[in-house]
């Protein structure tokens, strides 16, 4: 009888441990993924690459992480390179080249700024819009009704 009791107590302890720690752990992993520079940059580059082969007048809404981060785009001589940097103690940055297929890609930052900055305190929306043969990246929706 006492043996069964001990087993039961051990099982309850293990279950309690797992119940409380696993969500915390997965939450921490999810948060780490969300603020990872490589993942964010690759996701945004993927959106642009797919929009390049999509019909015109389409828009995709992406959420920038709630962190100290910035999106920049360098375009020169047909090459477009997206640069995502995030500061989490130290600065992480990742550059991804966009597929070149004749569609131009432009970033529309606020006047006087080089890139689009994230907001601390909220997940800021970023819009990727395909208008004719151009893709624009903006903080504001570029297609009405979306």
């Amino acid at each position, binding site marked *: 009888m006492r043996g069964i009791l001990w087993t039961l107590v051990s099982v309850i302890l293990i279950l309690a441990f797992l119940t409380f720690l696993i969500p915390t752990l997965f939450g921490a992993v999810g948060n780490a993924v969300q603020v990872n520079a490589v*993942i964010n940059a690759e996701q945004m580059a993927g959106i642009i690459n797919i929009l390049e082969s999509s019909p015109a007048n389409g828009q995709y809404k992406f959420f920038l992480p709630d962190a100290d981060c910035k999106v920049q785009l360098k375009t020169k001589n047909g090459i477009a390179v997206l640069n995502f940097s995030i500061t989490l103690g130290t600065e992480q940055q990742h550059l991804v080249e966009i597929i070149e297929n004749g569609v131009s890609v432009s970033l529309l930052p606020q006047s006087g700024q080089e890139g689009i900055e994230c907001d601390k305190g909220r997940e800021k929306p970023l819009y990727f819009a395909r208008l004719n043969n151009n893709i624009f990246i903006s903080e504001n929706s570029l297609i009405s009704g979306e």
Partner: protein
Amino acid sequence: MMRRITPIEVMGYVFKIVVVAFVIIFLLQIFVNMWPVVRLNQAEKFSIELVENVMNSNLTTSYGVFYPVLVESYHMKIIEPFMRQCDYAYALRFTCKDRDSCDDENIMDYIVIGYFTDKAPLFSKTYPIGYRIDGSDDYYNNVIPVELQVDVYDTALTNIACAIEKAYKLGEPQELRCLGYEGRDCRTIYSYFTGVGTDETDTNKNICSLQVTSPGNYKCSSEKRYLPDVVFQRAEPLVEFETLKNAKILRAIPTQGEFSGVECPNNWQSLVSSAPTSVALCIE
């Protein structure tokens, strides 16, 4: 009066404590040693994005239905037509699945476009597509089934070619680690690059990996990459091949000047130009 605890009971308590301690240590061990690994599968991601672009390119009449005449016009050309991302090279292989229909329409059974190499691709996938038969009004019944294999490559040569292209087009110096880093070997550099042009058959526009024919003699292997609209100062590794063998860093420097030799001069940073006339390669 308290009962005396027997040695067997003491051992029983010790055993229970050991079991509980073991369970706690085991659980802690699980959590301490848990390392989440995020795999991005970038080559696969690139392949999918590339295919989306290919399926909607000027080679097609509608999604995934290709003009065979146009596809044939690029056969065995090492250009990466319509779309390009210099980080990865790609080859498109079209294989006719209904040979009789292809023969009847005088369409080649096998067409290959893009990067040439004997090396295995980093990622490869096949897709069912079709050839549109010209002059037919019956759209749905006049498509010949074809298989498209998309091979994505990430080799030392594609890395070096991409560094040269980025340096020239962005006007920023690029750097690659040569030995002991992702298997890159800077001895693969060899080039006939001399000018600007768009003719992919012109060997002056290609960069290729070296093949040793006999001690001290090298030639271009079948692995080549075409670099459009890039001016590149000819690399001469034939004499300095042994020097290259020990190279640690390869730099692609956009410049308006001329470099001599293969080693980077001490003042290479002052020779960088944001509006380069060519790219020079050097090692450190």
